[in-house]
């Protein structure tokens, strides 16, 4: 059995007088895809943001490879890739510049590789067009280009299929599948009917108003 990358122990999160989840424990193992499910407002995005380290309003423990994530924050961040609802794309920069800026703090790559990555997400020919002239789906594809060159073993992807056309979705599913097979760990939320063999599910309820 391989060692879990990320473990959550007794996570509890309240938001505006409502307990989103409590006593939630989970382990993210290498080579697995974990899908977080639940209706709107059940805290899927919140859970992903907590796992990624963007949201600090929780109680419970988060362990990165068995050690306190807080103490190993930089190592954790270097090995985790998060893509959220908002793609992190600057409208005034071109896809190339955006991708270069996003990689600059993690793993600078030669322009040739970035160019190919953008081509791989179907943005061939748009590499040097200002991003504000691109459609919402194309802007998301700029962010998704990171998945083609990322070396982070843990991916946390929130609503990754949003605004992507059917053909793109199929290709993206294939990418996730291959990544898992080669040992990557992925956590996703999606409303799209994603099914991969060996998929773990975490189902969040509709919340719980009373208690304690």
């Amino acid at each position: 059995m391989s060692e879990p990358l990320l473990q959550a122990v007794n996570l509890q999160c309240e938001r505006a007088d409502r307990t989103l989840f409590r006593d939630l424990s989970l382990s993210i193992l290498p080579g697995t895809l974990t899908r977080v499910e639940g209706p709107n407002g059940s805290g899927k995005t919140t859970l992903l943001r907590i796992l990624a380290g963007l949201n600090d309003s929780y109680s419970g423990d988060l362990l990165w490879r068995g050690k306190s994530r807080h103490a190993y924050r930089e190592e954790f961040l270097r090995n985790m890739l998060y893509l959220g609802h908002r793609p992190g794309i600057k409208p005034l920069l071109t896809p190339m510049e955006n991708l270069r800026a996003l990689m600059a703090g993690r793993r600078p790559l030669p322009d040739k590789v970035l160019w190919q990555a953008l081509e791989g997400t179907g943005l061939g020919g748009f590499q040097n067009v200002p991003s504000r002239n691109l459609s919402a789906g194309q802007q998301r594809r700029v962010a998704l280009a990171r998945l083609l060159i990322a070396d982070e073993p843990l991916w946390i992807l929130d609503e990754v299929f949003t605004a992507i056309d059917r053909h793109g979705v199929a290709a993206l599913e294939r990418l996730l599948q291959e990544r898992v097979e080669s040992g990557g760990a992925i956590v996703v939320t999606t409303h799209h009917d994603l099914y991969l063999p060996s998929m773990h599910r975490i189902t969040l309820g509709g919340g719980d108003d009373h208690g304690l």
Partner: protein
Amino acid sequence: MTMASETGLPICTPDMSVGTLSAMKAVFVRDLKIALRQPQDLLNPLLFFVMVVTLFPLGVSPEVSFLREAGSGILWVAALLSVLLSLDHLFRHDFDDGTLEQLVLQPQPLFLLVLAKSLAHWVLTGLPLVLLAPVLGVMVHLEGNSIAVLCLTLLIGTPVLSLIGSIGAALTLGLRSAGVLLSLLIIPLYIPVLIFGTGTVMAASEGAPVGGQLALMGAFLVLALTLAPFASAAALRISLSNS
């Protein structure tokens, strides 16, 4: 149960990641590049600065004696207000398009990345004000020596304004009516810089030595450089937790 590969992918240790300095440089360069693509946004605080200064001769008195006495104060207040006005965008666009999330998740100390952003903000707003100040100084009849000292105080003081302002911008991120709230929180903290900025020019115009005051303003700058990024980074994390 699962098909988990026994080894998993290699883990990168922090020493394999990008150095903090080059990450800071990347943040700085990106902010500069974006700003230069939209030069109008750069010009606005400058125009505001000029207009506020113009209001005083029109609203109070165009007499040389009044302007000479009040000139340094007018320029400082106008500079302070135009920095304040520009603070709202410091993190807002990044917050809206998701770039800020990615910044917080970079494997470098966040306060240093925030410092890079604050410095970029200063280069884009504070520095142009310093460069424009001599022209306006002449227009309010300041003497040559006073203008030189004024520019020096602005040069030391405006980075402090950007740094302290970044705390307020980070605290009010994502709130309704953030602009007014930001001014409310930040103006009291700007008062010492304003006092020493104008006081130094006044002392200079009376022929007193100003080395001590300038050294003190330098101390403010050092203090702001060391403390403000920590506070802004903490505030950014809080604001992102809330979104």
